């Protein structure tokens, strides 16, 4: 492979992106404008409600018979809106929470039964109570869970102490905690990971247009007459569009950051996000090539590209959260779903980069994107020479 050729064609593609106003708008300005408009006006995810919340319980109660913690757990299990999983240690529960497998973790403290017992012994003498706190860890990647779960748990606690906590004191306080910084999440926090994914989806259209235009105006023929090999040409295209995707992701991140999206994660998490977007852009080049293989003209390519753009957009990015169960299931067949899922786990749930969910998402994205690119190249080479 001659890298001078790859570099020359890559530079050419970059100049095209900067100099052609329509391309510049679609690739850079459109995502930024969209992020701004969506982030500024999006007020929630509509009426779609999760039927049940999956909550993990870690019982650290030191009382010999676990009397009250058992009552509390049973009461939680009796709530039809909750599905309870019992964990033997906090670490496993936190790991599942960070990967989105459960939506909350309740940590029953060692002094839980002692606290209830002390309260029952002297309900009107707070100075004799054993005060304790029940930490509640919430899935920061779920807007609904953060809003719905705390009141439900609070209600169950109230039934144990048999008090209305709004008016009377209680020895047990429910304390919401988070894996990341404890802060009130905004709607933007929940849609930002999808925005990273969203930005590069429109590369499908740009790739399809670029290939069909070059075919129409004879440029593809001129390239084929030169000593440039098909692999050099394709490498230049992939590198160019990965570079564009990287710039898009940086712009979208800057935009969302300026609007208040400030996840408490380290540099490795950001690096991971950019790498994931880069890998994802490969699938968009593939979808673009598939479109260009079918489309006879650049205008047809523009229309046909939406066959890939819309499913990726609606089933795989932030919009997917408000779709029906069937649509969300269908989302699992588009690469963008796994990109958004991984970014949500990293940015909002604070999942470690080495956790099974993240690694699975990365694997699915990598394999599917390379497969889509290969299909795109094979199809394009079949119908039109490269």
């Amino acid at each position, binding site marked *: 492979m*001659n890298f*001078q*050729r790859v*570099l*020359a*064609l890559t*530079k*050419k593609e970059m*100049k*095209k992106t900067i*100099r*052609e106003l329509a391309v510049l708008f679609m690739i850079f300005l459109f995502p930024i404008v969209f992020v701004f408009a969506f982030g500024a006006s999006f007020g929630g995810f509509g009426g779609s409600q999760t039927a049940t919340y999956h909550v993990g319980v870690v019982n650290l109660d030191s009382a010999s018979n676990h009397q009250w913690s058992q009552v509390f757990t049973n009461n939680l299990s009796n709530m039809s809106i909750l599905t309870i999983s019992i964990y033997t240690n906090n670490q496993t529960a936190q790991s599942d929470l960070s990967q989105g497998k459960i939506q909350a973790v309740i940590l029953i403290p060692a002094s839980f039964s002692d606290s209830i017992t002390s309260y029952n012994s002297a309900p009107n003498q707070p100075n004799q109570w054993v005060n304790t706190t029940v930490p509640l860890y919430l899935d920061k990647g779920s807007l609904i869970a953060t809003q719905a779960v705390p009141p439900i748990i609070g209600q169950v606690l109230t039934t144990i102490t048999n008090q209305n906590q709004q008016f009377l004191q209680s020895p047990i306080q429910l304390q919401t905690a988070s894996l990341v910084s404890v802060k009130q999440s905004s709607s933007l926090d929940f849609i930002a990971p999808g925005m990273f994914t969203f930005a590069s989806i429109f590369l499908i259209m740009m790739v399809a247009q670029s290939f069909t235009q070059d075919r129409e*105006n*004879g*440029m593809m*023929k*001129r*390239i*084929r*007459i*030169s*000593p*440039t*090999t098909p692999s050099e040409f394709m490498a230049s295209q992939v590198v160019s569009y990965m570079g564009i995707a990287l710039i898009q992701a940086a712009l979208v991140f800057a935009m969302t950051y300026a609007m208040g999206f400030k996840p408490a994660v380290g540099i490795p998490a950001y690096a991971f996000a950019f790498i994931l977007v880069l890998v994802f852009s490969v699938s968009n080049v593939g979808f673009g090539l598939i479109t260009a293989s079918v489309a006879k003209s650049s205008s047809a390519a523009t229309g046909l590209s939406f066959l890939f753009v819309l499913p990726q957009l609606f089933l795989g990015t932030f919009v997917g959260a408000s779709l029906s169960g069937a649509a969300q299931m269908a989302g699992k067949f588009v690469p963008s779903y796994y990109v958004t899922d991984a970014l949500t786990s990293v940015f909002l749930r604070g999942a470690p980069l080495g956790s099974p969910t993240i690694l699975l998402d990365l694997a699915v994205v990598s394999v599917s994107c390379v497969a889509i690119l290969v299909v795109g190249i094979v199809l394009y080479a079949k119908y039109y*020479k490269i």
Partner: protein
Amino acid sequence: MNESAITIENLTKKFEDKTAVEDLSLKVFKGELFGLLGPNGAGKTTTISILCGLIKPTSGSAKIFDYDIQKETQKVKEQIGVCIQETAIYPYLTGIENLELFGKLYGMNKKTIKERSNMLLTNMALKEDAKRVTAKYSGGMKRRLSLALALIHDPQIAFLDEPTIAMDPQSRHAVWDFIKEQKTKGKAIILTTHYMEEAEELCDRIGIIDRGRLIALGTPKELIAKNQVKNLEEVFIQLTGRNMREEL
């Protein structure tokens, strides 16, 4: 001028039920400017497309110097320059950037690209517009740049497919002078054109192709004398008829 640059033997190309080129045999020599003439759809462009590796022949063979066009495609591509019919230039690049890009694709170094670009831009009267994006060029300027792109790597063989179409008379004569100059440097040039006076002015030998078959071959003077007419245009009409043809 007797060293063969292009050797075509029994070349045939069929598209489904239509034969575009049929049993074509031909030699073009170094330093020769060969005119390939014929009505629309006669098979000229198909022949050039086969010679530069864009399409495969159905049967027969062809060599560029000693390189087989099907087996040594990469070597063939390094020897040839092709000015295709379409005005294929990147509209968002400047004239000089288009030349630099294709110079790099042909593996040239920066110094040589600069020298060749300057020479070609001067000869094609594009020097003053070299730094303008080509989207703003006139049709004639684009054609001239297209020709310059074909020759950026100083190829030993040039295929010029209607290079002067849409050019004004001044530009056309400037291009003619440049093509003649290339011939004096020992380059082999195959020219297709619909301008008979262009063929008569430039070409050492002419092959007239019709319905994929070579129907006449010789110098312009030989063809005129043999057909007992006044000029090449009359030779062409006499041999190919007056009826309009469909493009292949």
